[in-house]
């Protein structure tokens, strides 16, 4: 499959057939929503849903690459918060400056992660836990612990609040482009193959002469950059850089990646299924909101955390069972 040069839509959607479950679940949930709620299929709900979840999709894609190497990035939430503050400060110069600025700020933390993990040989979760603290501290320091309002006069807020060609939000267009590019990188390039090989066995990859360190630097830079981009979306969509945002985002991202069938031990993964996983997770909350609106249930914001954890729990259980049956079959 990796050898085929032509763009194969079926392969693009399915990965290699392992991820049917997430697409079925997504379709089922959408049908459920359409049948049960009047406004579920409205343009307003679809657009605002996609716009809000663009942040989580982009972070999940970056996380997916890290997890495929067998690593983890716990810093994405704070890094996104940091980048949102940077983007808010740069917003008077317009989107042309603020967008790359935010992404670079995120990538800089990715570089710190990569340095700690590769050069200092610190386990990924410790290194990225430390960066999570540092990014949070950094965000509070540069913002003076205040939300930083963006410049409404520049074109910066168009990114998060307006639609490309009056159809889809800009954020979703960007996410789609990033996802397609990274899908090609993963499925069609030696870099992508190396990422998967590292997760399969880092020692074997080294012995085979694969450029392991280069690929690892790439995934952490990518994850940082994706978190930075999410921060830019955050600042642009909500009109402010928010140093205290991003708590628990790493968990959502990990959950999306796992729902998408990427093995937490690395070696297997799919960009498209990760996107589907992020949409599925977002959809669960969207549907809960609709249920709240109908008055059938009344869940406080605190339930969100419980449900998020419970969702991750169920997904992990399913994945454990799937792995067990796959091992039996193979």
């Amino acid at each position, binding site marked *: 499959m990796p050898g085929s040069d032509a763009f194969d839509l079926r392969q693009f959607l399915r990965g290699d057939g392992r991820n049917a479950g997430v697409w079925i679940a997504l379709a089922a949930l959408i049908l459920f929503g359409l049948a049960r709620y009047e406004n579920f299929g409205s343009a307003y709900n679809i657009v605002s849903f996609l716009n809000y979840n663009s942040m989580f999709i982009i972070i999940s894609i970056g996380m997916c690459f890290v997890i495929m190497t067998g690593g983890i990035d716990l810093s994405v939430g704070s890094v996104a918060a940091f980048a949102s503050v940077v983007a808010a400060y740069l917003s008077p110069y317009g989107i042309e400056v603020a967008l790359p600025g935010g992404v670079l700020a995120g990538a800089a933390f990715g570089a710190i992660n990569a340095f700690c993990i590769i050069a200092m040989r610190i386990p990924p979760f410790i290194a990225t836990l430390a960066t999570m603290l540092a990014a949070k501290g950094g965000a509070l320091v540069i913002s003076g612990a205040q939300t930083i309002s963006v410049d409404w006069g520049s074109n910066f807020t168009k990114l998060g609040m307006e639609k490309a060609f009056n159809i889809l939000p800009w954020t979703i267009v960007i996410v789609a482009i990033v996802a397609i590019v990274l899908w090609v990188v993963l499925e069609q390039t030696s870099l992508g193959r190396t990422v998967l090989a590292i997760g399969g066995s880092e020692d074997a990859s080294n012995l085979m002469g694969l450029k392991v360190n280069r690929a690892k630097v790439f995934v952490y830079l990518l994850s940082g950059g994706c978190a930075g981009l999410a921060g830019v979306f955050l600042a642009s969509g909500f009109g402010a850089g928010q140093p205290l945002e991003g708590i628990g985002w790493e968990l959502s991202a990990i959950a999306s990646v*796992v729902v998408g069938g990427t093995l937490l031990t690395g070696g297997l993964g799919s960009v498209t299924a990760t996107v589907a996983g992020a949409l599925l997770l977002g959809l669960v909350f969207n549907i809960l909101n609709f249920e709240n609106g109908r008055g059938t249930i009344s869940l406080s914001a605190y339930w969100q955390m419980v449900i*998020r954890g419970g969702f*991750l729990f169920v997904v992990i259980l399913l994945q454990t069972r799937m792995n067990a049956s796959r091992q039996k079959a193979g």
Partner: protein
Amino acid sequence: MSDGSLSNGKAVSRAPAPLSLGTLRNHGGLIALVLILAFNALFTPNFLQVQTLFVNISQVATIAIVAIGMTLVIATAGIDLSVGAVMALAGALAPLIFLSDFGQAYPALGIAAAFVLPLLAASLCGLFNGIMISYLNVQPIIATLILFISGRGIAQVLTNGNLQTFSNPYFSYLGTGKILGLPFQGWLALVLALAVYWLVSRTIFGRYLLAVGGNERAARLAGAPVRMVKIGAYVLCAFLSGIAGLIVVAINSASDAARNGNLMELDAIAAAVVGGALLQGGRAPIFGAILGAVIIQLVKYTLLANGVEDEVALIAKAAIIVLAVYIQQARKE
């Protein structure tokens, strides 16, 4: 990871040069402690006062107690990110119980239940983590991430996110009582450390614990009950976190589920690693964890007392964690 020696300490036989990486590795904690104390004695106003000692003891106790549990978990080559959330959960339950109608009607029973039930709930959290990790083979980071986020959520759902204030001298003794003039929780941390030290060094559980962390496959082949040992470590860690959660609530005479134990997992991991625990497992330096906790607390205090902002202190803490792990990391290579 897999070089598999059970006796990690014996490998180092060359004589280390003064202040080499080896010296830092073996005595880095003590050196750091002396440096921090010297710095404070010279530069921090009013550092050499009895009051300072009290403040630091009462605050270090919670870090130390959690760090002891974290050391046990790290000894099995695991990690527990849920300790802070478990603190919040235990801390939220206690006032709910002794402020309930039942607790008001039977004060003695209410207080007893306010100690027992939260610790039971905490232990159940540990059981959950342990089963996820040992029976379902979920990586410790991921397994404990579930309660890391939803444990605090449960605590906030239980209290509806409200701050619960109370005045209950019996319960508050846990956080404000004094024995021989020193804070009660300091003594409690010491007693718990002694008990766990005994458990690690004098019981079969302790032998198995180090064996599992040293080389899990070898331990399994040698007939060690690997799963039960791992579950035991996570249950103990959660139980100790529960105690720490109760202490925090008792100190404040109030329970705030959003803040109780927030970022404690980082302090505890840092304390355990500074104290000499190896993330690859196989070592359980209990008193090292206490030393590590004291260092972490003194760093916090030093920064605070010298007017460094909280935000900058976060960055300093991140640097300490990375540095400590880096120094420890070289040990096995």
